C-alpha cells in the first residue's frame, strides 16, 4: 500500500511517500500506525501524539479503526489550515 505524509509529518518522517507491505494482522489504520512507528525514530516521533494527526484512506477522512487493504492510498497529515 501507498503511504503519504503531508505538512510537518513529511518532515518528521523524512519522506513524503513510501510503499509498504505490512505483515499479516495489520488490518486497521490504528494497527498500521503502530507498525509504522517501529520503522524509524522519525516515524515514531511523527505518530507520538495522534490527537494532532488526521488520516485519510483513498482520499476520504476515516477513524483509527478503519480497515485497510492492499492497494489503499493512506495519507497522514495535521489538521488542515487552508482557506
Amino acid at each position: 500500500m501507498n503511504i503519504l505524509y503531508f505538512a510537518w509529518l513529511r518532515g518528521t518522517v523524512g519522506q513524503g511517500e513510501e510503499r509498504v507491505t505490512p505483515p499479516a494482522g495489520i488490518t486497521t489504520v490504528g494497527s498500521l500506525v503502530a507498525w509504522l512507528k517501529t520503522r524509524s525514530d522519525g516515524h515514531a516521533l511523527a505518530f507520538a501524539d495522534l490527537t494532532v494527526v488526521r488520516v485519510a484512506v483513498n482520499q476520504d477522512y476515516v477513524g483509527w479503526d478503519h480497515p485497510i487493504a492492499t492497494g489503499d492510498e493512506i495519507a497522514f497529515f495535521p489538521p488542515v489550515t487552508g482557506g
Partner: protein
Amino acid sequence: MIRVQADDFDPGAELAAFSAGNGKVGGVCMFLGLVRDYLGDEPGAAANVRGMTLEHYPGMTERQLAAIEAEARDRWPLHEVLIIHRYGRLEAGARIVLVATASSHREAAFQSCHFLMDWLKTKAPFWKIEHTDGGDQWVAAKDQDDCAADRWNKK
C-alpha cells in the same frame, strides 16, 4: 465549479462571469480570502509574515471540495457555486481563496457562502507554512475554526 490552482485569479472577472445571465438569481454572496501581512491573533506574535506556502493533497482536495459543494447544494437552493483555492507560494496581500454562491434569495446566498468557507477551513486538505522574519512555521489549526464549522452540523 471547483478550481484548485497555483495561478492567481481575478476576483472582479470571476464575479462578473459568475453573476451573468441567470434571471432567477436574486443574490450573490462572495468571500475572498487574502494573505495578511501580520500575525494578528496570538499574543506576542510580533514577527511579520512575509508570505506563506500552501501545500495541499492533490486529488483529495478536489474530492473534498466537491463534497462540500454538494453538501451546500443539498442544504440550500443554489443556482451557482464557485470555489477557487490556490496553493504554492503566496506573498503578503495575495489572494488565497474565493467562494461565491448564487441563489434566488439573499439568506440562502449568505448562509451557503459562509458554510462553504467554514467547512473548507476544516475539511479541505491544505496546510499553510508561514514565512516570517523569525523563520518558517507551520500554521496550527484553530479551535475557533472547528467551532465555526460545528455550528453547521445538523442537530
